[in-house]
């Protein structure tokens, strides 16, 4: 593979790393073939389609479709949750951040991890005990179905579509490169594969695709970290010393915190977005219904936290490995950029640090492997997202709102398959429409909506006896609106995208404000709700609380 080819591979992969907010500049050109990457990618697609065929034969009821029959073990589900969470964005983005800023990358990873213990202590068990297919089951347990489900579905669908846009754009550009296909055809290919996995294989296929991908990603990252450490006789001190030698200047100390979190408001707001946002992501919450009971749900979080934590430690080593093995290596230097701005810019920008490192430690073959894994990661994540979105449409909107709970299971499953196809088509069109757009804000917005609308309703419905429908609907909608408005008038959209000189709202992360608005308004409107319905909803709390605490009456696994 020539340097020229690699330039474009890196440019394109860079676009996936949404969180790291870097965007790619310049033309994307169709590429010649990267044979090892394509072979490995075809093997992955072949294997996953085989799994889909196997899963299709086992997916007979709506319960199978939404939750794999509730028969996934805690360990498997932990791996699948980790798979949902370890996106291409976090792999490339966090290792790129470590490469560029050193210690700041670790601060970011820790923020993503600490939400998990809290999900375990507060959310996992009542969620499993009260719900069936979606988190709206829990939120609407004792409240009025139509308004609560409509709002929860709106929050879910908004989160899912924002995430899908980010993933589709990155995926389209990646395959465009690997196969030399047009961007449009590449996006259609991703959409079609995802529709196949989800419509035929449902949650069972989606879960196994996620498990395989998590395994591949962890293996690849482990190999890279070991290769880096072997260079330094497994001595962290020497690795850090070599890296500091190369990178430290008067204005940068890679061993200490830099500018990522500079003021307390941003620090707290980011922390709230990550913690509560994680606990409000529909595709993550849905995973808790795939296990048989609360015991397995707890184990899921235990294993997921372990895998995710291990993965973040690996990305930290990989980032430092890239500093010592990529930073001054002329092979990865962007000469054109260096001629203009000097320094040591690498091809494709900082988000390509891990990809360059994979080539530095394992040659073209391993570069192909990591590229194929990055693509598999996107495919797995979009499948999980689409299934969560389709469930919100079929289970919450169709079966509960439209059919008032009287839909038959087969009809509901048909609707969810149609919704999957529909979401796949929407994702394809969005992917094409957003090809040239700056999409750095979308994942942040998805987290803000999840933290400000989904999470407060879910949490208060589980623990606060005085919550009423009126409070949840008005407060949740206010939280959602506040999050959207603050992102639009904040620095990322208002200044970077719309080109205004100064942001109306000065902080990048709105969560501290929008979550506060959401909780306060839900509280105030609930306690002032003197309606008859409100009284009945408060009275129904005790029975719900008993079920959430003990699991008496909870959904079990179906017999297979």
């Amino acid at each position, binding site marked *: 593979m020539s340097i020229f080819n690699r330039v474009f591979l890196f440019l394109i992969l860079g676009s996936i790393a949404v969180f790291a907010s870097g965007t790619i500049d310049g033309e994307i050109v169709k590429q010649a073939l990267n044979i090892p990457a394509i072979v490995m990618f075809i093997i992955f697609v072949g294997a996953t389609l085989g799994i889909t065929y196997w899963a299709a034969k086992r997916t007979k009821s709506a319960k199978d479709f939404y939750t794999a029959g509730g028969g996934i073990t805690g360990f498997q589900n932990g791996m699948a949750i980790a798979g949902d969470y370890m996106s291409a964005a976090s792999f490339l983005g966090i290792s790129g951040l470590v490469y560029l800023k050193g210690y700041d990358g670790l601060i970011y990873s820790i923020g993503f991890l600490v939400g998990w213990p809290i999900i375990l202590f507060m959310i996992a068990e009542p969620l499993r005990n009260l719900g069936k297919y979606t988190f709206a089951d829990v939120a609407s347990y004792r409240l009025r179905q139509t308004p609560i489900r409509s709002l929860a579905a709106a929050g879910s669908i908004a989160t899912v579509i924002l995430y899908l846009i980010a993933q589709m754009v990155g995926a389209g550009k990646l395959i465009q490169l690997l196969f030399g296909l047009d961007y449009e055809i590449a996006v259609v290919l991703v959409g079609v594969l995802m529709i196949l996995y989800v419509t035929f294989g449902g949650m069972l296929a989606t879960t196994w695709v996620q498990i395989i991908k998590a395994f591949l990603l962890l293996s690849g990252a482990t190999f890279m970290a070991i290769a880096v450490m072997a260079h330094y006789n497994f001595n962290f001190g020497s690795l850090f010393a070599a890296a500091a030698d190369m990178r430290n200047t008067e204005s940068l100390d890679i061993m200490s915190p830099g500018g990522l979190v500079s003021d307390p408001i941003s620090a707290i707001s980011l922390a709230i977005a990550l913690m509560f946002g994680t606990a409000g992501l529909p595709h993550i919450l849905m995973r808790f219904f795939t296990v048989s009971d609360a015991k397995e749900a707890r184990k899921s979080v235990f294993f997921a936290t372990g895998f995710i934590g291990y993965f*973040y430690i690996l990305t930290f080593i990989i980032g430092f490995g890239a500093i010592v093995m990529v930073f001054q290596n002329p092979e990865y230097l962007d000469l054109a950029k260096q001629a203009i701005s000097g320094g040591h810019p690498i091809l494709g920008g900082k988000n390509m640090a891990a990809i360059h490192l994979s080539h530095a430690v394992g040659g073209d073959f391993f570069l192909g492997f990591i590229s194929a894994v990055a693509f598999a990661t996107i495919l797995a994540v979009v499948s999980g997202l689409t299934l969560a979105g389709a469930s919100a449409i079929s289970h919450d909107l169709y079966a509960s709102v439209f059919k008032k709970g009287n839909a038959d299971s087969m009809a509901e499953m048909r609707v969810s398959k149609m919704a999957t196809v529909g979401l796949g088509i929407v994702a394809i069109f969005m992917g094409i429409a957003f090809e040239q757009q700056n999409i750095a804000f979308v994942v942040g917005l998805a987290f803000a909506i999840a933290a400000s609308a989904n999470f407060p309703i879910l949490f208060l419905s589980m623990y606060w006896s005085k919550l009423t429908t009126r409070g949840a609907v008005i407060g949740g909608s206010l939280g959602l609106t506040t999050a959207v408005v603050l992102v639009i008038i904040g620095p990322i959209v208002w200044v970077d995208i719309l080109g205004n000189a100064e942001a109306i709202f000065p902080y990048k992360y709105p969560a501290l404000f929008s979550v506060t608005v959401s909780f306060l308004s839900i509280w105030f409107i609930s306690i002032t709700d003197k309606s008859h319905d409100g009284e009945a909803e408060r009275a129904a709390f005790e029975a719900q609380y008993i079920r959430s605490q003990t699991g008496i009456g909870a959904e079990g696994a179906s017999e297979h």
Partner: protein
Amino acid sequence: MTQELVKKIKANPDYQKLVKTRTAFSIKLTITMLVVYFSFILTIAFNPSALGTPLSSDTVTSIGIPIGIAIIVFAFVLTGIYTKRANGEFDDLSNKIKQAIKED
């Protein structure tokens, strides 16, 4: 769930014990995690150089690195502690409550 059953379970001493001990335990662990995380993030916001101090005079490795890794490991250990106790002690109590309902 009928009102009668709700009343019966609420009066069950095992249920009262389960809710009391588990709620206290969950809150204790949640607060522990929050205190650890917010001490870290607020140290970064107010006094970032504290974490940049080298571990000893002959190394560049800063104290922030073992602290950061320790927080990741700590989060995992906390989930382990909760899971172990909940899957043992708390589930035993839940099963006893379910058994008591069946026997009536």
